């Protein structure tokens, strides 16, 4: 009944309820097929002789018509969210954030040292790590500094929040490794240290190790790529990306955090009251519309508003979409299975009438946390907060169909 009311309401503003989409989809597809013109000079006409195409290849490449690229700024590259479909990011388009470049590590000489407050300080080879029970899980990885808008209205999803990507990661549970070395009761934290030139370090609470932390050696079915931590990295689902230390060389268990540079002067959150939040690991719920978005131009009529939503605290409970700048909201359709701490696809069919519109999305996670708007976030955090910014953002659709980033919503 509730849903019927919503459907009625939304139909007035040109949006379709979930039920209408599910029951009407088949008819819509049929109509579009019937509407196709007979193929002509497009190469699909079987009237002319056709020679064979390329032979099989050892390693595939993308179609020459498609060139999705990461956007580069120094030690950072951003995932082209607007070019992706589904929820998995191709490994070669996964965002990068390095602190001193990508090291070259020979898997034959790779070692992981686990020591400190453990019963048996141990060195593991890569082969040792692979002999443990292998676990695979899908989750997002997001840098906590994931809000860009230097392009103003000409900001793409990639620049706006392309420091998030999703993969299926495979490796050994850290709890398995810790059981192997024997964690002493006084161990409350562990230091994770990378083998990059900056030997980057973060202190992580031991609870995370015993919960869902992994040491990953594979991503999307293949062994890790160098820029994602080859041959092995820490993976902390739901936590800010920086803490999932790449090129992992050492784990040092201790009673206290180490207070490294990356958990004191960086990756902390100055607040309006003069305090600074520390060890703020979890990424709060967020969403972004990836289509339509800048630099697309759209035509009046039906289109699907699409995007991704995610939360470091668990599953996405719902995503709401507004096509009138936040005055009214409708529930988007979530693409299942909805996984915890994972990018979740959402969509909503929208009939654009050609009048200027502002489209926005808002994620709500299973804890009841709703993605805030910029004013609410600034209100509680103050102006100097640099990380964990997850505001509702939107796109302006002009009368000419040009889609621009609604930069004014972030000022």
């Amino acid at each position, binding site marked *: 009944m509730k849903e019927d009311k919503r459907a009625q309401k939304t139909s007035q503003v040109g949006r379709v309820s979930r039920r209408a989409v599910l029951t009407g989809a088949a008819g819509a597809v049929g109509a579009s097929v019937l509407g196709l013109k007979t193929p002509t000079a497009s190469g699909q006409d079987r009237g002319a002789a056709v020679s064979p195409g390329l032979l099989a290849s050892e390693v595939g490449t993308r179609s020459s018509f498609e060139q999705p690229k990461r956007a580069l700024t120094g030690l950072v590259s951003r995932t082209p969210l607007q070019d992706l479909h589904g929820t998995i990011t191709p490994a070669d388009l996964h965002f990068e954030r390095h602190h001193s470049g990508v090291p070259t590590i020979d898997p034959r000489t790779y070692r992981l040292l686990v020591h400190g407050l453990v019963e048996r300080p141990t060195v593991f080879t890569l082969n040792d790590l692979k002999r443990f029970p292998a676990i695979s899980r899908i989750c997002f990885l997001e840098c906590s500094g994931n809000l860009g808008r230097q392009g103003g209205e000409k900001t793409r999803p990639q620049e706006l929040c392309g420091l998030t990507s999703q993969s299926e990661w495979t490796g050994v549970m850290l709890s398995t490794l810790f059981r192997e070395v024997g964690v002493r009761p006084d161990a409350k934290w562990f230091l994770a240290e990378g083998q990059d030139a*900056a*030997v980057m370090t973060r202190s992580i609470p031991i609870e995370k190790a015993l919960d869902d932390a992994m040491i990953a050696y594979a991503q999307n079915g293949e062994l890790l790529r160098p820029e994602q931590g080859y041959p092995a990295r820490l993976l902390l689902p739901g936590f800010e990306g920086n803490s999932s230390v790449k090129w992992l060389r050492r784990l040092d268990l201790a009673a206290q955090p180490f207070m490294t540079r990356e958990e004191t002067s960086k990756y902390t959150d100055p607040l*309006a009251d003069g305090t600074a939040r520390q060890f703020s690991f979890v990424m709060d719920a967020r969403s972004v519309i990836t289509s339509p978005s800048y630099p697309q131009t759209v035509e009046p009529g039906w289109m699907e508003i699409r995007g991704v939503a995610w939360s470091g605290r668990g599953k996405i409970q719902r995503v709401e979409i507004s096509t009138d700048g936040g005055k009214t909201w409708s529930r988007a359709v979530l693409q299942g299975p909805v996984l915890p701490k994972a990018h979740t696809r959402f969509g909503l069919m929208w009939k654009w009438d050609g009048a200027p519109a502002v489209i926005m999305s808002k994620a709500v996670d299973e804890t009841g946390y709703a993605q805030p708007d910029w004013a609410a976030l600034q209100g509680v955090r103050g102006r100097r907060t640099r990380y964990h910014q997850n505001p509702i953002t939107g796109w302006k659709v002009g009368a000419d169909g040009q889609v621009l980033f609604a930069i004014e919503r972030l000022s």
Partner: protein
Amino acid sequence: MKSRMRTLTILMLTTIGTVLSTAQSPPPRFGLGQPASADLIAAWDIAVMPDGKGLPPGKGTPAEGATIYAAQCASCHGANGEGGVADVLVGPEPKGFAPFGPQYEKFRGDAKDVPFTIGNYWPYATTIFDYIRRAMPPNAAGSLKADQVYSLTAFLLAKNGIIAENAVIDAKTLPAVMMPARNRFVPDDRAGGAKVK
């Protein structure tokens, strides 16, 4: 009949036996990896903790640090730590002004952003030593000797007005340095739920 039953029983037991032998329950430990020797740990462990654990023998002064800074750091961080292609390092809180917090929010209209620096934001002096030793200078990380790292740490602390110009920094004095921002840091209080934090 009886012998047939016996054969069947033996067959069943054999089958069960086979199932049990292939599905072993995992042991508490798999016995993988090699014991790490004390020498290996000493060679690999370069972390310094706030209480000074991990600090090596050696010492340094601001004056010694100034020379090393000019040669190895100034090109990126500025002659006086004012920043350049790399972070601003020096900047005690100006009188009546902080890089963030109530004062900053109050003057938001006309205030120029005050940079976050060692002097106004780093909570532990040991972090300076740890970070310089592991990561600086970026084109030759790990090349500085312990005395050089102590000296650079002393130079930056003095430049920020936290220690005296003639202070000597070593494994004993460094952890005792009280940083201006020490008490600003609080644990993360976000925990999901309806409230925006």
